[in-house]
């Protein structure tokens, strides 16, 4: 049994099919990338898995997570999974963090909600988590509000919150798109290390092919709500089948070629 089994997933808004019957499996401990343009349905797919689609959406098909059918679950049952068995990291940490709560308490919240751990004890765990995600001076950090932190620090907090309950599945939706490249490199490396050391599975959504390639083993290429290609990263680059994948790869390789000389000199 796979950790996550998605079958014929359809998401509709009115009579518009925005996710059009997609199916895929995710094994425990593996990493899957989802790539596509805006409107391709990549974010809606992850929202459907997390049960966070707006009420106006109609969902059909099947999403089985650890053997349980998620589409039959009530909101309360899904809440007990989110932040617990599944952790989420969103694109813009400034909007996904609560601006009025110190970040230490925000890290302690999932522990209180899912484990019944008092906030005071949760703060001690938060301190450790801050160290795990590479934040300097954790005592000061956990007393800070989000606006007092830099973009990279905020996204590390987002990661600490997602990891607080040791989820088996981490879902990251464009987690580094809002960051500078040098910060992006650090955050990606951190996510890579953490996912590997904890043995979690990862779903990584991005429009950036080079980022996906460094983070995942296999890739779903989505276009207008459908999966047009599902392949291992190496295979996708060696032998892209769909026109859309070919274009994406050509663009990425074109950009990549610019830096070949410099890299040849350094490595």
């Amino acid at each position, binding site marked *: 049994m796979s950790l996550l089994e998605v079958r014929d997933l359809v998401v509709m808004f009115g009579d518009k099919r925005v996710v059009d019957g997609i199916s895929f499996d995710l094994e425990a401990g593996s990493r899957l990338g989802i790539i596509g343009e805006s409107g391709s349905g990549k974010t809606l797919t992850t929202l459907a898995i997390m049960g966070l689609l707006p009420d106006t959406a109609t969902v059909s098909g099947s999403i089985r997570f650890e053997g349980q059918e998620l589409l039959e679950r009530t909101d309360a049952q899904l809440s007990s999974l989110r932040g617990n068995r599944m952790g989420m990291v969103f694109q813009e940490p400034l909007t996904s963090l609560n601006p009025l709560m110190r970040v230490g308490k925000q890290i302690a919240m999932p522990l209180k909600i899912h484990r019944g751990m008092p906030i005071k004890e949760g703060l001690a765990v938060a301190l450790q988590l801050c160290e795990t995600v590479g934040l300097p001076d954790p005592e000061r950090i956990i007393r800070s509000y989000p606006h007092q932190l830099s973009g990279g620090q905020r996204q590390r907090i987002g990661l600490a919150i997602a990891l607080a309950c040791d989820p088996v599945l981490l879902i990251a939706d464009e987690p580094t798109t809002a960051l500078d*490249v040098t910060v992006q490199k650090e955050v990606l490396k951190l996510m890579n290390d953490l996912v590997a050391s904890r043995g979690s599975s990862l779903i990584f959504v991005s429009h*950036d092919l080079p980022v996906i390639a460094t983070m995942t083993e296999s890739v779903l290429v989505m276009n207008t709500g459908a999966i047009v290609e599902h392949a291992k990263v190496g295979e996708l680059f060696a032998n892209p089948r769909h026109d859309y994948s070919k274009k994406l790869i050509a663009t*990425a*390789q074109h950009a990549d070629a610019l830096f070949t000389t410099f890299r040849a000199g350094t490595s």
Partner: protein
Amino acid sequence: MTTILETAGLSRTFRLPRTGLGSSRAERHALVDMNLTINAGDRLGVVGESGSGKTTLMKLLLALDTPTAGSVAFRGERLPLADMARFRRAVQVVFQDPRSSLNPRMSIADIVREPLECLGIDGNHDERIDDVLEAVGLGAAMRTRYPHELSGGQRQRVAIARALAPRPEVLIADEPVSALDVLVRDEILDLLQGLTTSLGLTLIMVSHDLSVIARLCDTVIVMQDGVAVERGRTADVFSRPSHPFTMNLIAAVPRLPGS
């Protein structure tokens, strides 16, 4: 070679809010002693991370902000000119997000017409609107549409058409493709490349994306903390960077498998 824009000791310092009662206001040096000469036909890229002063520099070059020290000169005359409309006709801008830079309540034709009227440009405006819409690959059928009916790429084409309408000499583009999807990004970069060549435009492009700068710009300056830490021909800077910051920036670009 004609020098179009020149900065001398250009600096901009912002005073930050007080952090406590009675505390003094800290200062942030967004741009420090920038000397830059831009000649007709140059295609200059400005790269750097957030907070490096790229946008401050762009705003000063556009005379949308006032320097705290130093100056910008347009064709040898120090800004602001007595006749600023002459400067505005010559130096036009394309912003990052066309969704916020286009007025949602104006039709495409009116959006492109606005600079022609505001800057007092003679001639047949309707003809000019058709010409520039065609130049950016949009048909005359677009005239009556509104921004929300367009895709992101089409909207950015409208923003480019609006900038081209007054027949500028210099086009300043601040992250013109950052808000767009990868493939649409390519189309817009191709368009900008074609237009700068065919119209002989001078281009100044700000971006955090090195590959975007490499596509379009012959020369580049790399900014860090308000200072140009490296400048030179784009091909040289990107293949043999000399400053550690530039090296870090290039090394941070994710590699493709097998490269």
